[in-house]
């Protein structure tokens, strides 16, 4: 419906309800009061409403009384609009931003411990170089590698090293921040 409120006549057949599912990944960035139980309130809301969080990252902000929770979820399964409105009802949630994909820098960090046999070691090191990843721990049988980047980049790195034998993986989940606007 274009420019509502300017029409003289509202024909019922022209009315459309807003679409529920967006079909893409959403990153929600929440500013919450740093109070006991806030995370439990959010986690409880997700479980009782049947929302499934893909990743969740919690950390401080520039304001000591405020924490940031960054969570990602699948807009093909969840009506994001309903999720944000339910989150808004939590008294300790100050602000919610549904991050615009093009206007957002999103990064996560991951640690991979990979089997590193004599034959495979060189290839893994090569992947690490291509992905601008760092080797942070070495043993005779394994390498531990730190990767930072978008979720897609970390996914891709995982696919590369998995055939070598992934012993353990730890991912932080994405954190995100809006890009600065291009200067005029």
């Amino acid at each position, binding site marked *: 419906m274009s420019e*509502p*409120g300017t*029409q*003289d*006549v*509202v*024909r*019922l057949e022209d*009315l*459309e*309800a*807003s679409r*529920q599912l967006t079909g893409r990944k959403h990153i929600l960035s929440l500013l*919450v*009061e740093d109070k*006991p*139980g806030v995370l*439990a*309130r959010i986690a*409880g809301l997700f479980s*009782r409403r049947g929302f499934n969080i893909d990743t969740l990252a919690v950390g401080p902000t520039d304001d000591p009384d405020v924490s940031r929770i960054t969570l990602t979820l699948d807009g093909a399964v969840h*009506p994001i*609009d*309903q999720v944000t*409105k*339910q989150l*808004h*009802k*939590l*008294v*300790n*949630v*100050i*602000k919610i931003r549904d991050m615009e994909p093009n206007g957002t820098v999103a990064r996560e960090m991951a640690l991979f411990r990979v089997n590193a046999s004599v034959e495979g070691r060189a290839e893994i090191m090569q992947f690490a170089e291509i992905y601008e990843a760092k080797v942070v721990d070495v043993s005779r049988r394994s390498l531990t590698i730190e990767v930072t980047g978008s979720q897609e980049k970390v996914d891709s790195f995982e696919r590369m090293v998995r055939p070598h034998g992934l012993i353990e993986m730890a991912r932080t989940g994405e954190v995100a921040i809006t890009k600065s606007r291009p200067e005029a």
Partner: protein
Amino acid sequence: MRAADALFQALKAEGVEHVFGIPGGANLPIYDALYDADLIHIQARHEQGAGHAAEGYAKATGKVGVAMATSGPGATNLITAIADANLDSVPTVFITGQVRTDQIGTDGFQEADVTGMTLPVVKHSFLVTDPRQIPDYIHQAFHIASTGRPGPVLVDIPQDLSRAEIDYQPAQGTPTLPGYKPPTEGNIKQIRIAAKALANSRRPVIYGGGGIVNANASTEFREFCLTDRLPVTLTVMGLGAFEAPHEQWLGMLGMHGTRAANYAMDEADLIVCVGARFDDRITGKLSEFAPRAKFVHIDVDPAEISKNVPAHIPIVGDAADVLPKLTREYRALDADSSRLDDWWQRIRAWQNEHPLRYEDSHDSEIKPQFMIEAMYEATEGDAIITSDVGQHQMWAAQYYHFSEPRRWLNSGGLGTMGFGLPAAIGAKVARPDETVVCLAGDGSLVMVCQEFATAAQHEIPVKVFLMNNGHFGMVRQWQELFWQERYQSVAMGPSPDWPKLAEAFGWTGMQCSDKAELRDAMRAALDTEGPVLLDVRVTQNENCYPMIPAGHAARDMVG
């Protein structure tokens, strides 16, 4: 002063005159402070009763109801009432004692993480960690409980903190809560679109709910409905928000609503929902609900909009703000009222063909529907009626005509059996000049019958009209209709002897099983001083009709 004394100072600053509760170990300091506080405390006999009484108090007045309990089992007993207040949006504050701070997390005696347990069923909760927080938290709790979409707020106070000394500073002004800004004013552009859509609608239905009552917007709602010949239906929570009977009144909608109301929803081209939430008891099978309709949804809680049914014209705001604007905008359009002629003709045909009806007995047997009609006559429609949950509740919703809001107090969302008696106690405390009648079911009443003692001790003259059919009637009905008459655990057996039970608690007990005597028996009960129970023996196997079987569409109504 002690933090517990400050607690009562803070409650009084919020205008609290009555609290309902039960003392115990962890809230001993609070009850000690109550000794000196100039407040009336109603000592319930079970914390659930205290909680429902606080709800009844709130529902009858719109004021915040307050209930108190001790830690552990006291607090867990409150949870049913908290969940009830949450689903029916009842402004309530629950104050629980907690074990000492050094015992928290040690599985101490009577320790229960009530803050954690109630997270899913509160609007908000506070666990006090510093005694100086108490006055502020109470102030914030009342603000949160009573504004926006109302609801329950829990304040959990460890025993050592309530006895600590603090400097009491009365909280001033509206509390600042960075994450809580309930919307009030509706978007005028959206309201205009809604008015224009309504002006173009040929088959509109106005579907209102408890939100109108909560917003104290019944007058505004009525005015809006009367701007044109708009057909009106209400949920079980909304009854009284529009006067019944009235020529524009279709009756309640939903599972046990009238055919006219449900068929009108089914064929409507525009449904204007005000303060209701498209609960499954209203929609039935969601995919077949009102298939031809576009939806205007007015609600103060943005999360309700498009939760179950996608709204075409969402309006977030307080009904008391939105409705007058909508009325004004609609009037300005000067819509042609005759466009509704065909629609009314169709509705009148449904009304004539399918009025609410039942087959009355030809002897002295009392049909349950007859009992509701007798109750309407005996009270002259001028009473606050509370109810339990089940067949009697639905029959009352069908056959008792509620013409004003806050006179029909029942548990709609959670469907809590046993709500009626304690809610009546709370309502009578709040509105001592009103006749308060609890329409009870025999399955429900026995769940809370200890509260007879509360009414007796505090001399609260509520009247209980017990619809005694000897069964969990609604469950029996479902077993009959949908479970091949395999009756399991629905008969109540011969006990108790209700008049005797009531008398044992110090009430007057009466009984009636003759249709011809029922009205007089009711009048006698109403005229008798003090609390009275009237045990009315009704037909045992009567079913509540009409009915949309669960998961079916309005078109599939039976009975």
